[in-house]
Protein backbone atom coordinates (compact mmCIF):
# COMPACT_ATOMS: atom_id res chain seq x y z
CA UNK A 1 0.00 0.00 0.00
CA UNK A 2 1.56 3.22 -1.10
CA UNK A 3 1.93 6.14 1.29
CA UNK A 4 -0.24 8.33 -0.91
CA UNK A 5 -3.00 5.78 -0.88
CA UNK A 6 -2.84 5.61 2.89
CA UNK A 7 -3.02 9.34 3.23
CA UNK A 8 -5.98 9.56 0.86
CA UNK A 9 -7.73 6.77 2.69
CA UNK A 10 -7.42 8.38 6.10
CA UNK A 11 -8.29 11.76 4.65
CA UNK A 12 -11.50 10.29 3.23
CA UNK A 13 -12.37 8.63 6.52
CA UNK A 14 -11.76 11.80 8.49
CA UNK A 15 -13.66 13.93 6.02
CA UNK A 16 -16.71 11.73 6.24
CA UNK A 17 -16.41 11.57 10.03
CA UNK A 18 -16.45 15.34 10.09
CA UNK A 19 -19.58 15.36 7.94
CA UNK A 20 -21.28 12.81 10.17
CA UNK A 21 -20.39 14.50 13.38
CA UNK A 22 -20.94 18.12 12.34
CA UNK A 23 -24.70 18.24 12.98
CA UNK A 24 -24.20 16.70 16.41
CA UNK A 25 -21.52 19.16 17.37
CA UNK A 26 -23.67 21.98 16.08
CA UNK A 27 -26.63 20.62 18.04
CA UNK A 28 -24.48 20.29 21.14
CA UNK A 29 -23.33 23.87 21.08
CA UNK A 30 -26.74 25.15 20.01
CA UNK A 31 -28.42 23.34 22.87
CA UNK A 32 -26.69 25.71 25.30
CA UNK A 33 -27.68 28.87 23.49
CA UNK A 34 -30.53 31.28 23.90
CA UNK A 35 -32.05 33.48 21.21
CA UNK A 36 -29.24 35.95 21.73
CA UNK A 37 -26.60 33.36 20.99
CA UNK A 38 -28.30 32.61 17.70
CA UNK A 39 -29.40 35.88 16.22
CA UNK A 40 -25.93 37.35 15.99
CA UNK A 41 -24.84 34.78 13.41
CA UNK A 42 -23.24 31.39 13.86
CA UNK A 43 -21.30 30.96 17.08
CA UNK A 44 -19.55 27.86 18.32
CA UNK A 45 -17.65 28.31 21.54
CA UNK A 46 -19.57 28.92 24.77
CA UNK A 47 -18.50 31.81 27.00
CA UNK A 48 -16.18 33.07 24.32
CA UNK A 49 -18.80 33.60 21.63
CA UNK A 50 -22.07 33.32 23.51
CA UNK A 51 -23.34 33.09 27.04
CA UNK A 52 -24.33 29.45 27.59
CA UNK A 53 -27.61 28.58 29.23
CA UNK A 54 -29.21 25.33 30.31
CA UNK A 55 -32.66 26.47 29.22
CA UNK A 56 -32.75 24.19 26.18
CA UNK A 57 -32.12 21.16 28.36
CA UNK A 58 -34.43 22.29 31.13
CA UNK A 59 -37.32 22.55 28.72
CA UNK A 60 -37.07 18.83 28.07
CA UNK A 61 -37.66 17.84 31.62
CA UNK A 62 -39.90 20.57 32.97
CA UNK A 63 -43.63 20.50 33.20
CA UNK A 64 -46.16 23.26 33.55
CA UNK A 65 -43.59 25.92 32.94
CA UNK A 66 -43.25 25.96 29.20
CA UNK A 67 -41.37 22.71 28.84
CA UNK A 68 -42.27 19.18 28.07
CA UNK A 69 -41.69 16.20 30.28
CA UNK A 70 -39.76 13.87 28.15
CA UNK A 71 -39.69 10.99 30.62
CA UNK A 72 -43.18 9.60 30.00
CA UNK A 73 -42.96 9.79 26.23
CA UNK A 74 -39.52 8.22 26.40
CA UNK A 75 -40.93 5.26 28.26
CA UNK A 76 -43.98 5.03 26.00
CA UNK A 77 -41.75 5.10 22.96
CA UNK A 78 -39.64 2.29 24.36
CA UNK A 79 -42.67 0.15 25.19
CA UNK A 80 -44.35 0.64 21.82
CA UNK A 81 -41.20 0.26 19.77
CA UNK A 82 -39.90 -2.79 21.55
CA UNK A 83 -43.24 -4.61 21.62
CA UNK A 84 -43.98 -3.94 17.98
CA UNK A 85 -40.45 -4.89 17.00
CA UNK A 86 -40.63 -8.16 18.89
CA UNK A 87 -43.98 -9.18 17.44
CA UNK A 88 -42.89 -8.18 13.95
CA UNK A 89 -39.71 -10.11 14.41
CA UNK A 90 -41.51 -13.28 15.48
CA UNK A 91 -44.09 -13.19 12.70
CA UNK A 92 -41.61 -11.90 10.13
CA UNK A 93 -39.03 -14.54 10.96
CA UNK A 94 -41.56 -17.35 10.64
CA UNK A 95 -42.80 -16.03 7.33
CA UNK A 96 -39.29 -15.46 6.06
CA UNK A 97 -38.33 -19.03 6.94
CA UNK A 98 -41.33 -20.34 5.06
CA UNK A 99 -40.55 -18.18 2.06
CA UNK A 100 -36.92 -19.16 2.09
CA UNK A 101 -37.40 -22.90 2.45
CA UNK A 102 -40.60 -23.88 0.72
CA UNK A 103 -42.01 -23.28 -2.71
CA UNK A 104 -45.30 -21.45 -2.97
CA UNK A 105 -47.25 -21.30 -6.15
CA UNK A 106 -50.68 -19.89 -6.74
CA UNK A 107 -51.39 -18.82 -10.28
CA UNK A 108 -48.60 -16.50 -11.31
CA UNK A 109 -47.64 -15.85 -7.70
CA UNK A 110 -44.25 -17.20 -6.64
CA UNK A 111 -42.18 -16.87 -3.50
CA UNK A 112 -40.51 -13.73 -4.77
CA UNK A 113 -43.92 -12.16 -5.32
CA UNK A 114 -45.01 -12.91 -1.78
CA UNK A 115 -41.78 -11.45 -0.46
CA UNK A 116 -42.35 -8.37 -2.59
CA UNK A 117 -45.89 -8.14 -1.24
CA UNK A 118 -44.49 -7.91 2.27
CA UNK A 119 -41.96 -5.27 1.31
CA UNK A 120 -44.42 -3.37 -0.82
CA UNK A 121 -46.35 -2.48 2.31
CA UNK A 122 -43.74 0.15 2.86
CA UNK A 123 -44.40 1.88 -0.46
CA UNK A 124 -47.65 3.54 0.62
CA UNK A 125 -46.96 7.05 1.88
CA UNK A 126 -48.05 7.29 5.53
CA UNK A 127 -50.01 10.45 4.82
CA UNK A 128 -52.69 8.44 3.10
CA UNK A 129 -52.92 5.76 5.70
CA UNK A 130 -53.55 8.28 8.46
CA UNK A 131 -57.32 8.46 8.08
CA UNK A 132 -57.95 4.76 7.36
CA UNK A 133 -55.81 3.76 10.31
CA UNK A 134 -57.59 6.34 12.40
CA UNK A 135 -60.96 4.84 11.50
CA UNK A 136 -59.70 1.33 12.07
CA UNK A 137 -58.37 2.07 15.52
CA UNK A 138 -61.53 4.05 16.24
CA UNK A 139 -63.58 1.00 15.38
CA UNK A 140 -61.40 -1.12 17.63
CA UNK A 141 -61.51 1.49 20.37
CA UNK A 142 -57.75 1.69 20.35
CA UNK A 143 -57.14 5.30 19.43
CA UNK A 144 -54.76 7.08 21.73
CA UNK A 145 -53.48 3.82 23.20
CA UNK A 146 -50.12 2.16 23.08
CA UNK A 147 -51.74 -1.05 21.93
CA UNK A 148 -53.25 0.65 18.90
CA UNK A 149 -49.90 2.08 17.92
CA UNK A 150 -48.28 -1.32 18.35
CA UNK A 151 -50.78 -2.81 15.89
CA UNK A 152 -50.02 -0.16 13.30
CA UNK A 153 -46.30 -0.45 13.83
CA UNK A 154 -46.45 -4.19 13.25
CA UNK A 155 -47.68 -3.49 9.74
CA UNK A 156 -44.83 -1.05 9.28
CA UNK A 157 -42.07 -3.17 10.75
CA UNK A 158 -42.93 -6.69 9.72
CA UNK A 159 -41.95 -6.04 6.08
CA UNK A 160 -38.50 -5.05 7.25
CA UNK A 161 -38.16 -8.17 9.37
CA UNK A 162 -39.30 -10.36 6.48
CA UNK A 163 -36.91 -8.74 4.07
CA UNK A 164 -33.85 -9.08 6.28
CA UNK A 165 -34.70 -12.59 7.41
CA UNK A 166 -35.49 -13.99 3.94
CA UNK A 167 -32.09 -12.82 2.82
CA UNK A 168 -30.53 -14.23 5.94
CA UNK A 169 -32.14 -17.65 5.68
CA UNK A 170 -31.15 -17.84 2.03
CA UNK A 171 -27.54 -17.84 3.20
CA UNK A 172 -28.07 -20.61 5.75
CA UNK A 173 -27.29 -23.89 3.99
CA UNK A 174 -30.37 -25.94 3.32
CA UNK A 175 -28.39 -29.00 4.28
CA UNK A 176 -28.72 -27.88 7.87
CA UNK A 177 -32.50 -28.16 7.62
CA UNK A 178 -32.24 -31.44 5.79
CA UNK A 179 -29.93 -32.87 8.42
CA UNK A 180 -32.32 -31.86 11.13
CA UNK A 181 -35.24 -33.45 9.35
CA UNK A 182 -33.26 -36.60 8.67
CA UNK A 183 -32.41 -36.60 12.36
CA UNK A 184 -36.11 -36.73 13.12
CA UNK A 185 -37.22 -33.11 13.35
CA UNK A 186 -40.51 -31.99 11.90
CA UNK A 187 -40.29 -28.72 9.94
CA UNK A 188 -41.31 -26.73 12.99
CA UNK A 189 -38.82 -28.54 15.23
CA UNK A 190 -36.18 -27.96 12.58
CA UNK A 191 -36.88 -24.27 12.66
CA UNK A 192 -37.02 -24.09 16.42
CA UNK A 193 -34.17 -26.40 17.41
CA UNK A 194 -31.71 -25.90 14.60
CA UNK A 195 -32.31 -22.84 12.46
CA UNK A 196 -33.37 -20.33 15.08
CA UNK A 197 -30.45 -20.93 17.44
CA UNK A 198 -28.15 -20.28 14.50
CA UNK A 199 -29.90 -17.14 13.31
CA UNK A 200 -28.76 -14.70 15.95
CA UNK A 201 -26.95 -12.37 13.57
CA UNK A 202 -29.96 -12.12 11.29
CA UNK A 203 -32.33 -11.66 14.19
CA UNK A 204 -30.14 -8.96 15.67
CA UNK A 205 -30.00 -7.01 12.44
CA UNK A 206 -33.71 -7.41 11.68
CA UNK A 207 -34.61 -6.51 15.25
CA UNK A 208 -32.43 -3.46 15.27
CA UNK A 209 -33.79 -2.24 11.96
CA UNK A 210 -37.27 -2.61 13.41
CA UNK A 211 -36.21 -0.64 16.47
CA UNK A 212 -34.69 2.12 14.39
CA UNK A 213 -37.64 2.50 12.06
CA UNK A 214 -40.15 2.20 14.89
CA UNK A 215 -38.35 4.58 17.20
CA UNK A 216 -38.13 7.23 14.53
CA UNK A 217 -41.67 7.08 13.24
CA UNK A 218 -43.33 10.38 13.70
CA UNK A 219 -46.34 10.34 11.53
CA UNK A 220 -48.50 7.60 13.02
CA UNK A 221 -47.44 8.35 16.54
CA UNK A 222 -48.68 11.81 15.77
CA UNK A 223 -51.97 11.10 14.03
CA UNK A 224 -53.30 8.22 16.06
CA UNK A 225 -52.93 9.64 19.53
CA UNK A 226 -54.59 12.47 21.40
CA UNK A 227 -53.47 13.31 24.90
CA UNK A 228 -53.04 10.03 26.78
CA UNK A 229 -50.31 8.40 24.75
CA UNK A 230 -47.42 10.41 23.50
CA UNK A 231 -44.31 9.06 21.87
CA UNK A 232 -40.98 10.76 21.94
CA UNK A 233 -40.82 12.44 18.51
CA UNK A 234 -44.31 13.82 19.05
CA UNK A 235 -43.40 15.14 22.46
CA UNK A 236 -40.32 16.77 21.05
CA UNK A 237 -41.99 18.58 18.17
CA UNK A 238 -44.33 20.04 20.77
CA UNK A 239 -41.47 22.46 21.29
CA UNK A 240 -41.54 23.59 17.67
CA UNK A 241 -43.51 26.77 18.15
CA UNK A 242 -43.60 30.00 16.15
CA UNK A 243 -40.12 30.78 17.35
CA UNK A 244 -38.27 27.64 16.42
CA UNK A 245 -36.48 26.84 19.67
CA UNK A 246 -33.12 25.87 18.21
CA UNK A 247 -31.78 25.22 21.69
CA UNK A 248 -34.31 22.73 23.02
CA UNK A 249 -34.74 20.92 19.71
CA UNK A 250 -30.99 20.49 19.61
CA UNK A 251 -30.99 19.06 23.09
CA UNK A 252 -33.90 16.81 22.16
CA UNK A 253 -32.09 15.54 19.09
CA UNK A 254 -29.18 14.51 21.25
CA UNK A 255 -31.36 12.92 23.92
CA UNK A 256 -33.46 10.95 21.47
CA UNK A 257 -30.52 9.47 19.64
CA UNK A 258 -28.92 8.20 22.84
CA UNK A 259 -30.58 4.78 23.16
CA UNK A 260 -29.99 4.06 19.50
CA UNK A 261 -26.30 4.78 19.80
CA UNK A 262 -26.24 1.76 22.06
CA UNK A 263 -27.86 -0.04 19.17
CA UNK A 264 -25.03 1.09 16.91
CA UNK A 265 -22.55 -0.47 19.30
CA UNK A 266 -24.42 -3.77 19.30
CA UNK A 267 -24.51 -3.77 15.50
CA UNK A 268 -20.85 -2.98 15.29
CA UNK A 269 -19.82 -5.68 17.71
CA UNK A 270 -21.67 -8.17 15.54
CA UNK A 271 -19.89 -6.83 12.51
CA UNK A 272 -16.52 -7.11 14.16
CA UNK A 273 -16.97 -10.64 15.29
CA UNK A 274 -17.79 -11.51 11.74
CA UNK A 275 -21.06 -12.84 13.02
CA UNK A 276 -22.95 -10.75 10.59
CA UNK A 277 -21.44 -12.76 7.82
CA UNK A 278 -24.52 -13.67 5.93
CA UNK A 279 -26.80 -11.87 8.32
CA UNK A 280 -27.68 -9.43 5.63
CA UNK A 281 -27.83 -10.39 2.03
Amino acid at each position, binding site marked *: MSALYRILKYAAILLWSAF*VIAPFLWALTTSFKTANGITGGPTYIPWLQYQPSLEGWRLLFRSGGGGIQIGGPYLDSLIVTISASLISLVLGTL*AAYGLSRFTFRAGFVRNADITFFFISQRIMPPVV*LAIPFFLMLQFLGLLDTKFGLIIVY*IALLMPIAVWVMVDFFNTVPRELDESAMLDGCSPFETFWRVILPNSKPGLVVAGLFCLIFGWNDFFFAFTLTFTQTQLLPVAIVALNSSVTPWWSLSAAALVSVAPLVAVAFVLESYLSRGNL*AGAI*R
Partner: protein
Amino acid sequence: MSADRSKFVFVLPGLIVLVAIILFPLLFTIRVSFSDWDVARPGLDWIGATNYLRLVHDTRFWESFGRLALMAVGSVLLQYMLGFGLALLVWREVRARRFFRVLFLIPMMTTPVIMAVIWRTMFHESLGPVNDLVRLLHFAPLPWLSQAGLAMMSIITVEVWQWTPFMFLMLLAGLLSLPREPFLAAAIDGAGPIRTFLRVTFPMMAPISIGAIIIRLIEASKILDSVYVITSGGPGTATETSSYYIFIRGLRDFQVGYAAALSFTYLVIMAISLTIIAKVLARAMLVRDRA
Protein backbone atom coordinates in the same frame (compact mmCIF):
# COMPACT_ATOMS: atom_id res chain seq x y z
CA MET B 1 -48.26 -32.78 9.27
CA SER B 2 -46.50 -32.96 5.96
CA ALA B 3 -43.85 -30.54 4.86
CA ASP B 4 -46.25 -29.27 2.27
CA ARG B 5 -48.84 -28.25 4.76
CA SER B 6 -46.44 -27.06 7.38
CA LYS B 7 -45.09 -24.42 5.05
CA PHE B 8 -48.32 -22.53 5.48
CA VAL B 9 -47.92 -22.59 9.23
CA PHE B 10 -44.79 -20.50 8.78
CA VAL B 11 -46.03 -17.99 6.27
CA LEU B 12 -49.67 -17.59 7.12
CA PRO B 13 -49.52 -16.00 10.60
CA GLY B 14 -47.44 -13.11 9.36
CA LEU B 15 -49.32 -12.84 6.12
CA ILE B 16 -52.70 -12.89 7.81
CA VAL B 17 -51.72 -10.35 10.46
CA LEU B 18 -50.27 -8.06 7.81
CA VAL B 19 -53.26 -8.39 5.51
CA ALA B 20 -55.62 -7.88 8.44
CA ILE B 21 -53.88 -4.66 9.38
CA ILE B 22 -53.31 -3.35 5.89
CA LEU B 23 -56.35 -4.60 4.01
CA PHE B 24 -58.86 -2.17 5.47
CA PRO B 25 -56.69 0.91 5.00
CA LEU B 26 -55.92 -0.14 1.44
CA LEU B 27 -59.49 -0.91 0.42
CA PHE B 28 -60.69 2.15 2.26
CA THR B 29 -58.22 4.33 0.40
CA ILE B 30 -59.45 2.95 -2.90
CA ARG B 31 -63.05 3.52 -1.90
CA VAL B 32 -62.35 7.05 -0.67
CA SER B 33 -60.61 7.84 -3.94
CA PHE B 34 -64.01 7.51 -5.63
CA SER B 35 -65.62 9.89 -3.16
CA ASP B 36 -65.76 13.60 -2.74
CA TRP B 37 -64.63 13.59 0.88
CA ASP B 38 -63.46 17.11 1.41
CA VAL B 39 -62.93 19.47 4.29
CA ALA B 40 -66.47 20.73 3.97
CA ARG B 41 -68.08 17.45 3.08
CA PRO B 42 -66.87 14.44 5.03
CA GLY B 43 -68.25 11.06 4.10
CA LEU B 44 -68.31 8.45 1.42
CA ASP B 45 -70.45 9.61 -1.43
CA TRP B 46 -69.79 8.21 -4.90
CA ILE B 47 -68.52 10.49 -7.61
CA GLY B 48 -67.08 7.87 -9.92
CA ALA B 49 -63.70 8.53 -11.42
CA THR B 50 -63.92 12.31 -11.07
CA ASN B 51 -60.87 12.48 -8.84
CA TYR B 52 -58.86 10.40 -11.27
CA LEU B 53 -59.89 12.58 -14.19
CA ARG B 54 -58.83 15.64 -12.22
CA LEU B 55 -55.52 14.03 -11.38
CA VAL B 56 -54.69 13.39 -15.01
CA HIS B 57 -54.58 17.13 -15.61
CA ASP B 58 -52.88 17.96 -12.32
CA THR B 59 -49.50 19.08 -13.62
CA ARG B 60 -48.29 19.77 -10.09
CA PHE B 61 -48.73 16.09 -9.26
CA TRP B 62 -46.89 14.86 -12.35
CA GLU B 63 -44.13 17.40 -11.95
CA SER B 64 -43.70 16.28 -8.37
CA PHE B 65 -43.06 12.78 -9.69
CA GLY B 66 -40.20 14.05 -11.79
CA ARG B 67 -38.68 15.78 -8.80
CA LEU B 68 -39.23 12.72 -6.68
CA ALA B 69 -37.43 10.60 -9.24
CA LEU B 70 -34.53 13.02 -9.30
CA MET B 71 -34.38 13.28 -5.52
CA ALA B 72 -34.87 9.60 -4.74
CA VAL B 73 -32.64 8.20 -7.45
CA GLY B 74 -30.03 10.90 -6.93
CA SER B 75 -29.82 10.51 -3.20
CA VAL B 76 -29.99 6.71 -3.22
CA LEU B 77 -27.29 6.51 -5.84
CA LEU B 78 -25.09 8.83 -3.82
CA GLN B 79 -25.84 6.86 -0.68
CA TYR B 80 -24.93 3.68 -2.47
CA MET B 81 -21.66 4.96 -3.83
CA LEU B 82 -20.64 6.66 -0.62
CA GLY B 83 -21.80 3.74 1.48
CA PHE B 84 -19.83 1.33 -0.68
CA GLY B 85 -16.78 3.57 -0.56
CA LEU B 86 -16.95 3.88 3.20
CA ALA B 87 -17.50 0.17 3.65
CA LEU B 88 -14.42 -0.50 1.54
CA LEU B 89 -12.46 2.04 3.58
CA VAL B 90 -13.15 0.45 6.94
CA TRP B 91 -13.43 -3.09 5.68
CA ARG B 92 -9.80 -4.08 6.13
CA GLU B 93 -6.96 -2.85 8.26
CA VAL B 94 -7.68 0.64 9.41
CA ARG B 95 -6.72 2.16 12.72
CA ALA B 96 -9.63 2.53 15.14
CA ARG B 97 -11.98 0.97 12.62
CA ARG B 98 -14.47 -0.07 15.25
CA PHE B 99 -14.81 3.55 16.30
CA PHE B 100 -15.34 4.70 12.74
CA ARG B 101 -17.82 1.96 12.05
CA VAL B 102 -19.98 3.00 15.00
CA LEU B 103 -19.62 6.63 14.07
CA PHE B 104 -20.65 5.99 10.49
CA LEU B 105 -23.76 4.16 11.65
CA ILE B 106 -25.11 6.81 13.98
CA PRO B 107 -26.91 9.20 11.60
CA MET B 108 -29.33 6.40 10.71
CA MET B 109 -30.40 6.24 14.35
CA THR B 110 -31.63 9.81 14.53
CA THR B 111 -35.24 10.87 14.17
CA PRO B 112 -35.61 12.42 10.72
CA VAL B 113 -38.18 14.99 11.75
CA ILE B 114 -35.93 16.35 14.47
CA MET B 115 -32.70 16.15 12.51
CA ALA B 116 -34.35 18.04 9.68
CA VAL B 117 -34.82 20.99 12.03
CA ILE B 118 -31.16 20.82 13.02
CA TRP B 119 -30.18 20.73 9.36
CA ARG B 120 -32.38 23.67 8.59
CA THR B 121 -30.53 25.66 11.22
CA MET B 122 -27.24 24.48 9.72
CA PHE B 123 -28.28 25.65 6.27
CA HIS B 124 -29.71 28.91 7.59
CA GLU B 125 -28.14 31.34 5.21
CA SER B 126 -27.10 33.96 7.71
CA LEU B 127 -27.27 32.22 11.09
CA GLY B 128 -26.08 28.74 10.18
CA PRO B 129 -22.60 27.26 10.13
CA VAL B 130 -22.69 26.03 6.53
CA ASN B 131 -22.40 29.48 5.05
CA ASP B 132 -19.87 30.31 7.75
CA LEU B 133 -17.73 27.52 6.32
CA VAL B 134 -18.33 28.79 2.81
CA ARG B 135 -17.14 32.23 3.92
CA LEU B 136 -14.13 30.67 5.56
CA LEU B 137 -13.22 29.21 2.19
CA HIS B 138 -13.55 32.72 0.75
CA PHE B 139 -16.63 32.12 -1.28
CA ALA B 140 -19.78 34.17 -1.28
CA PRO B 141 -22.56 32.79 0.95
CA LEU B 142 -24.83 30.49 -0.97
CA PRO B 143 -28.64 30.55 -1.04
CA TRP B 144 -28.92 26.99 0.24
CA LEU B 145 -32.65 26.99 0.77
CA SER B 146 -33.96 29.71 -1.48
CA GLN B 147 -32.57 28.74 -4.85
CA ALA B 148 -34.11 25.81 -6.67
CA GLY B 149 -30.99 23.78 -7.49
CA LEU B 150 -29.31 24.37 -4.16
CA ALA B 151 -32.47 23.67 -2.20
CA MET B 152 -32.70 20.32 -3.92
CA MET B 153 -29.06 19.72 -3.15
CA SER B 154 -29.53 20.64 0.49
CA ILE B 155 -32.34 18.13 0.87
CA ILE B 156 -30.31 15.47 -0.89
CA THR B 157 -27.42 16.25 1.44
CA VAL B 158 -29.62 15.67 4.46
CA GLU B 159 -30.91 12.42 2.97
CA VAL B 160 -27.38 11.31 2.21
CA TRP B 161 -26.26 12.16 5.71
CA GLN B 162 -29.09 10.26 7.30
CA TRP B 163 -29.23 7.17 5.12
CA THR B 164 -25.74 6.50 3.81
CA PRO B 165 -25.22 4.53 7.05
CA PHE B 166 -27.91 2.12 5.96
CA MET B 167 -26.06 1.37 2.73
CA PHE B 168 -22.80 1.33 4.62
CA LEU B 169 -24.10 -1.27 7.05
CA MET B 170 -25.58 -3.50 4.38
CA LEU B 171 -22.51 -3.34 2.20
CA LEU B 172 -19.99 -3.69 5.00
CA ALA B 173 -21.80 -6.76 6.27
CA GLY B 174 -21.78 -8.08 2.74
CA LEU B 175 -18.09 -7.45 2.34
CA LEU B 176 -17.31 -9.11 5.65
CA SER B 177 -19.17 -12.21 4.58
CA LEU B 178 -17.38 -12.59 1.25
CA PRO B 179 -15.26 -15.70 0.83
CA ARG B 180 -11.51 -15.11 0.60
CA GLU B 181 -10.72 -17.44 -2.29
CA PRO B 182 -11.71 -15.20 -5.22
CA PHE B 183 -9.54 -12.43 -3.83
CA LEU B 184 -6.58 -14.77 -3.57
CA ALA B 185 -7.20 -15.90 -7.10
CA ALA B 186 -7.34 -12.32 -8.31
CA ALA B 187 -4.15 -11.51 -6.42
CA ILE B 188 -2.40 -14.48 -8.01
CA ASP B 189 -3.56 -13.26 -11.41
CA GLY B 190 -1.84 -10.02 -10.58
CA ALA B 191 -5.04 -7.93 -10.65
CA GLY B 192 -4.69 -4.43 -9.24
CA PRO B 193 -7.15 -3.00 -6.68
CA ILE B 194 -9.41 -1.47 -9.32
CA ARG B 195 -9.54 -4.62 -11.40
CA THR B 196 -10.12 -6.71 -8.30
CA PHE B 197 -12.99 -4.45 -7.34
CA LEU B 198 -14.60 -4.56 -10.77
CA ARG B 199 -14.07 -8.25 -11.42
CA VAL B 200 -14.41 -9.74 -7.96
CA THR B 201 -15.81 -7.48 -5.26
CA PHE B 202 -18.53 -5.71 -7.18
CA PRO B 203 -20.05 -8.79 -8.85
CA MET B 204 -20.14 -10.67 -5.56
CA MET B 205 -21.81 -7.71 -3.92
CA ALA B 206 -24.45 -7.39 -6.63
CA PRO B 207 -27.29 -9.29 -4.93
CA ILE B 208 -26.99 -7.43 -1.65
CA SER B 209 -26.62 -4.17 -3.54
CA ILE B 210 -29.87 -4.67 -5.41
CA GLY B 211 -31.76 -5.43 -2.21
CA ALA B 212 -30.38 -2.43 -0.42
CA ILE B 213 -31.01 -0.07 -3.31
CA ILE B 214 -34.61 -1.18 -3.70
CA ILE B 215 -35.37 -0.79 0.00
CA ARG B 216 -33.78 2.63 0.07
CA LEU B 217 -35.67 3.70 -3.03
CA ILE B 218 -38.93 2.72 -1.36
CA GLU B 219 -38.06 4.65 1.78
CA ALA B 220 -36.58 7.63 -0.03
CA SER B 221 -39.69 7.99 -2.16
CA LYS B 222 -41.74 8.69 0.94
CA ILE B 223 -39.57 11.66 1.80
CA LEU B 224 -41.76 14.14 3.64
CA ASP B 225 -40.40 15.35 6.95
CA SER B 226 -37.21 16.82 5.59
CA VAL B 227 -38.93 18.56 2.70
CA TYR B 228 -41.56 19.96 5.01
CA VAL B 229 -39.10 21.31 7.53
CA ILE B 230 -36.30 22.41 5.25
CA THR B 231 -38.02 24.05 2.28
CA SER B 232 -41.72 23.21 2.56
CA GLY B 233 -41.59 22.38 -1.12
CA GLY B 234 -40.17 25.74 -2.12
CA PRO B 235 -38.84 27.86 -3.56
CA GLY B 236 -42.00 27.86 -5.64
CA THR B 237 -42.55 24.17 -6.20
CA ALA B 238 -38.89 23.38 -6.79
CA THR B 239 -38.58 20.75 -4.08
CA GLU B 240 -42.13 19.50 -3.95
CA THR B 241 -42.16 15.70 -4.12
CA SER B 242 -45.11 13.39 -4.62
CA SER B 243 -45.65 12.44 -1.03
CA TYR B 244 -45.26 16.03 0.07
CA TYR B 245 -47.83 17.10 -2.49
CA ILE B 246 -50.15 14.33 -1.30
CA PHE B 247 -49.59 15.55 2.24
CA ILE B 248 -50.56 19.10 1.28
CA ARG B 249 -53.67 17.94 -0.53
CA GLY B 250 -54.67 15.35 2.00
CA LEU B 251 -53.94 16.80 5.39
CA ARG B 252 -53.36 20.51 4.79
CA ASP B 253 -56.17 21.09 2.32
CA PHE B 254 -58.08 18.12 3.71
CA GLN B 255 -59.16 17.00 0.24
CA VAL B 256 -59.35 13.47 1.50
CA GLY B 257 -60.97 11.94 -1.58
CA TYR B 258 -58.62 13.56 -4.01
CA ALA B 259 -55.57 12.74 -1.92
CA ALA B 260 -56.68 9.10 -1.84
CA ALA B 261 -56.84 9.07 -5.64
CA LEU B 262 -53.39 10.65 -5.75
CA SER B 263 -52.03 8.07 -3.35
CA PHE B 264 -53.51 5.10 -5.05
CA THR B 265 -52.06 6.29 -8.33
CA TYR B 266 -48.77 6.84 -6.58
CA LEU B 267 -48.87 3.34 -5.13
CA VAL B 268 -49.52 1.74 -8.50
CA ILE B 269 -46.84 3.76 -10.26
CA MET B 270 -44.30 3.07 -7.53
CA ALA B 271 -45.01 -0.65 -7.42
CA ILE B 272 -44.61 -0.90 -11.17
CA SER B 273 -41.51 1.24 -11.40
CA LEU B 274 -39.84 -0.48 -8.46
CA THR B 275 -40.48 -3.85 -10.07
CA ILE B 276 -38.96 -2.60 -13.30
CA ILE B 277 -36.04 -1.01 -11.49
CA ALA B 278 -35.40 -4.24 -9.62
CA LYS B 279 -35.41 -6.19 -12.87
CA VAL B 280 -33.17 -3.71 -14.65
CA LEU B 281 -30.75 -3.62 -11.74
CA ALA B 282 -30.67 -7.37 -11.59
CA ARG B 283 -29.92 -7.58 -15.27
CA ALA B 284 -27.32 -4.83 -15.26
CA MET B 285 -25.49 -5.98 -12.17
CA LEU B 286 -25.81 -9.73 -12.43
CA VAL B 287 -24.89 -9.94 -16.10
CA ARG B 288 -21.58 -8.36 -15.36
CA ASP B 289 -21.20 -11.12 -12.83
CA ARG B 290 -21.24 -13.75 -15.53
CA ALA B 291 -19.03 -11.84 -17.95
